[in-house]
């Protein structure tokens, strides 16, 4: 892997993770958006922007992260399996438990004060739907949340990644033998949101795509001849806009609506990944030459791990104090993610400086 490709991976990992703040920071009435979610509230500038970003234009980030992960993981095929899994346990599962506990602790602290406790209730983030204070739920419930259904729900990403890493020999074998068949199967997994125990189908397709790109030496470092910047950005943004309008305007009771939205979702993700990957090389070069950017990018994992549930709780807290302001929803959506971004950076910097060993453990050694 050449140096620029490595820089691109770092750059896009950081950008994708940072954009998660805007994906998770929306405050629509529907607190959980699926790719085919329609919106029941009126179409306004605020609701349009929030849906467009959170469930349209920025939806490419997790697929891109999985592709990068699959590509990088398949670069190390020569290392012994056991050694790789052991390392991945340290870099994925240990951080999973650490940040799951942090999420619970943050929630518990917020539950101790009336105003913040109300924000926790309003955020309704509990994965089991029971938003009572933890001291009412009790230890067994808290333990279950820590291990299985963390309030920091986004940690499913690193848990899934670990599972994919464990399954890697099988994935790799299938890709080498029948790549198209395998991709077709995992594509269906992605679309049907297949899940079995901890094997979640949502990322398997893109992880496999990353592995395939590496194994077949697809030249991702240069723009393909067939690639058109214009068309990829047009499809990426144009389809995202159309999908957003459709989410507001199509009849949710119509059986065809989810399929239309899903199809547009797929197109926009595919176009988005291509447009982003091949369309911003000068920006990547410029950013990766800047020391401040590299410094900030070193906290990618902290931003990823720490922003949930903070961004949700802070959003609800902002509602309490800002609801008298005009356009407070939009204001909250635009400001809170940025605020939490800097909170994560500062927390990460202090954490790394004061407790470097714990930091290494919590981040799986990332960011040094």
């Amino acid at each position, binding site marked *: 892997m050449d140096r620029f490709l490595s820089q691109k991976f770092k750059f896009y990992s950081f950008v994708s993770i940072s954009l998660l703040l805007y994906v998770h920071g929306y405050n629509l009435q529907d607190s959980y958006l699926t790719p085919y979610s329609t919106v*029941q*509230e*009126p*179409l306004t500038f605020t609701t349009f922007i929030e849906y467009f970003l959170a469930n349209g234009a920025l939806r490419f980030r997790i697929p891109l992260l999985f592709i990068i992960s699959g590509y990088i993981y398949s670069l190390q095929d020569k290392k012994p399996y056991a050694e790789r899994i052991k390392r991945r346990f340290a870099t994925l599962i240990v951080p999973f438990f650490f940040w799951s506990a942090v999420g619970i602790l943050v929630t518990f602290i917020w539950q101790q004060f009336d105003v913040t406790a109300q924000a926790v209730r309003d955020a309704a983030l509990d994965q089991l739907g029971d938003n009572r204070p933890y001291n009412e739920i009790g230890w067994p419930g808290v333990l279950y949340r820590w291990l299985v259904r963390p309030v920091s729900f986004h940690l499913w990403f690193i848990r899934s990644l670990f599972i994919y890493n464990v399954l890697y020999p099988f994935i790799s074998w299938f890709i080498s033998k029948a790549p198209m068949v395998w991709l077709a199967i995992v594509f269906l997994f992605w679309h049907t949101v297949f899940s079995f125990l901890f094997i979640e189908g949502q990322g398997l397709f893109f992880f496999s795509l990353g592995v395939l790109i590496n194994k077949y030496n697809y030249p991702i470092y240069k723009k393909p001849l067939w690639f*058109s910047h*214009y*068309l990829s950005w*047009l499809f990426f943004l*144009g*389809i995202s*806009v*159309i999908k957003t*309008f*459709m989410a*507001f*305007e*199509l*009849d*949710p*009771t119509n059986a065809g609506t989810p399929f239309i939205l899903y199809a547009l979702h797929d197109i926009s993700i595919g176009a988005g990944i291509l447009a982003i990957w091949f369309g911003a090389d000068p920006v990547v070069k410029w950013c990766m030459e800047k020391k401040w950017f590299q410094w900030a990018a070193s906290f990618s994992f902290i931003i990823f791990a720490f922003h949930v549930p903070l961004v949700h709780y802070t959003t609800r807290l902002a509602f309490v104090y800002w609801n008298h302001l005009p356009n407070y929803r939009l204001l909250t959506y635009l400001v809170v993610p940025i605020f939490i971004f800097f909170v994560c950076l500062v927390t990460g910097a202090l954490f790394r400086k004061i407790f470097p060993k714990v930091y290494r453990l919590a981040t799986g050694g990332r960011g040094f």
Partner: protein
Amino acid sequence: MRAFFFVSLLLLFTTTLPAQRFTFTHITTDDGIGLASNHVTSLHQDEKGFIWIGTANGLQRFDGSKFIQISTSKNGGDKLMYPRISQIVPADSGKLILGMFTLRQFGIFDPSTFIYKKIVLKPLRKIPASSEYRLWKDSQGEIYLNVQNYGILHFNKKDNSFVDDNLFPLPKGWALNTLAAFENKAKQQYWFGCDSGLCIYDKRSRQMWYSRNNPANLPILNDARINSNVGKIYIDRLHRIWLFGYPKWGNGSQQYRFCLDSTGSSYLNKDTAGLDYGVRGSNDYRHIFETKEGDLWIYGLNALLNFDKNAHRFDYIKSGTGNDNISIDYESVFQILEDKEGNIWLATNQGIYYTATGSSNSSVVNSTFTDKTGPTAINDIMELPNGNLLFASGRRGVTATDRFLKSINIPWYTQPPPAEWPQSLKDAVYQTWSLSIQSTTGDVWTGCNSGVLVIRNLETKKLQYLHPPEFNNSRIQYITEDKQGQMWLATQGGRLIKYSNNKFSVVLEIGTIIYKVFIDRQGWMWLATRESGLYAIDPSNGKILQRYTDDGGWNSLYSNTGTDIEQLKNDQIVFAGGALHFIDKATRTVLKVQYEDGLPSNTVIRLRTDEKGFLWIVTSNGLCRYNPNNKHITPYGRRDGVVLAELTIAADYSTSFGEIIFGGSNSVIMFNPAMFSTTQPPPDVTITDFKLFNQYLPVDSLLSKPRISLKNDENSLSIYFASLSYRQRDKLTYYYKMEGIDKDWVKADRSYFVNYSLLPPGKYSFKIYCENIEGMRCSNVTDLNIYIKPPYYKTWWFMSFLLFIVALLVYAVHDIRVNRLLAVESLRTRVARDLHDDMGSTLSTINILSSMAKNKVEVDNGKTTEYLGKISEYSERMMDAMDDIVWSIKPANDSMQKITARMREFATNVLEAKEIDFNFNIDDSVNDVKLNMEARRDFFLIFKEAVNNAAKYSQAKHLEMRLTMKNRKLLLVVKDDGVGFDVAEADGNGLGNMQKRADQLNGYITIESQKGKGTSVNLTIPVV
């Protein structure tokens, strides 16, 4: 003296005040709110709170303000028009089973789909034509139909029929009385009343027990009195067994009404006290109803009784058409329903009766007295330290009741007035106007006509009769005590008199009636006068501190005549002077609240604040309450149990028990204000109806959807709403907002619906909540999502899609233009290259050769001739090349026919010159092939090179050329029978050029040759 003894005698004659504990609101067809018939037979309240009503003219639904007639003929169901509904029983999932007994029809109605289906009767034998029916439901949700002279049918949900599955095998020969079925859930038994007595089905043993089969030896089954016609059975929550029936013993025409203990062995005769009213035979007790609080009601034909827990007997609520405002008129009470709030609803043959006070303990007492039953011509009220009440009566002097307004005997006038008084003064002793107790002495002061003052000491019971000259023979209108224990008296003549240090002194003379003297918390004394406004005076010196009149100024009163004064907790003085006045004495500002501000009338007469600071107001239009916290005025009337308020205009009092009493003339109302305060939020608002243009849509079905989707032209709609609290609904304030139209909450008027016309397409959310008089909001905002679909061409997604297509077209046009420019550039480049490659070098060579020939022309003719020959050869080759270039560029040569013609011409020229025989076969399919300019040239040059090579080097005698199409590929074969060559050793530009040109055509070329066996050149190129 005679009068004294007469009055004393009257007071000794004590009577029991008949308790009027229920104040019914009557709903009839005359009310104009849609009741279909006054013959109302059944009632049912559904989960949402709607009251379903069976009438002689069909099924209806009541939301508190209007009745909706339910008729349907929807596909998938049967017709339900306007049949006489006899009974409504709830089935599963909100469905209703309807019994139309006179038609011998039954059906099930689903409010969410508006589909009605008939239920088929499937008896095993014929049902007699005269049979009566009764539906009932057990605790398991099973529904049964009692059929007289037949037995019991069971509702089969799957089959939608009543079937005879013989679940309850009645003793042979016993006939079931249709009203006599009761499930004793605790004992898992079903009790049935038959013409031959009582039988009990024991669910555990699956046996029917009766007098001749009594394995448990139940005393009730052995009781000969009960082994007779049992018409009604009820076991109450005290496990008492109630049995009504017409016995075979006696003359059989008189209904027996038994109450037995839980064992059925002892008759509880005390518990049936009050049941046997009137003449037996003129009434028929058919049903027993027990409220959630355990109140028992018995009703039927000419019967409506309620058990009075205080009196421990049944009260008969008599039917009557009197003008006393509190009568109830009925012949038959068909059903009693207790709704979710504890209100009682009666279905009668005279319409629906409703009372908001389901429990007797919380009733408002409305009492009308006669001279025999209590105080009349009431002028003032006062409470004694022991809780009894004194009334100053204009005709009967001071009379007393207990705290429940039951008249009691207190011989007030223990001694006669002074004998020396003239008769007018003696009479004035019983013409009492005002009462007050002097806290320092315990004396009760009574102000009378003609300036007579009667003072009675409560301990010694001794009376003092005074007639001080300070009163100037004027009626003592009002008496009160200040904080210093001084007594203040106001007269009709307008004198304010102070009693202090055992002497009376006139403090102020106004010259008009002083109706009320009120001492506020700061010690100011306020006087409400007739035609002279409101005075505030300093009681220490009688100096007027403030005066308010109807002078037209900024702090003007509504009227100069005022009857009452109060002070609110925030130190505002409230003055009843026509309108209601709130006076800030610090700023002297007067705030008037009038009819247009929500006051029931501009004749405010009495005021009284309660312990919570609410102000109770009696106006000429009834009672209302002012909430100083939210400034809401709430009227109270019949629905709240308040009937006589407009008559109680003379006196008011707050008792030490927290009750407020208003009195006047011969009427008194007494209530605990806390009864009207709710600590619970009101129920959430229900969308009761949805009307599109002028057509009602089935609201239950609409509300089951996440949103109502309407077409773009279905944009005028009405939404009906109500909080289904029949007790509070008129006192609730509704606020609604249509998100997408309304920016703020809109306060609803009393019409309980809102119209929206010509709504533009879009997504709307109608939200509504209500607030009760305490300012408490309902728990949830009710919302109704409405989506008026725009036509697709007006949607944002379609417009953005069009933009997307336009952007794609722009790209396509741009792409075509760029490709065209590139093609032109490519052509120019190619021509330039060809000219350079093919012409430039040849012309250079010719130039060199001509120079050399020129130099040798005179020296060496041989060389010159050689040079000239070469020049000729090169120029000929150049002409050929030029010919090829021109030929390839020329559009006229684009067709395959032109290409093959040129190929044939070239082959003929070359091969005939060499005397080589040849064949050139061309398939017809080849003519359809299109080659662009470059491809055409490359293809021709490959052919040319192949033929040239054959002609030059093969020494062939015959050349075979074939041009065919196969699988969308153009195949060219040039094959000779010449000497052949070793392909591996072949060297030369010609073959290389052929290969290069084949590549440019995305094809491939193979050369097969062996020495002595000829050569075959095969070209394959893909074509479109």
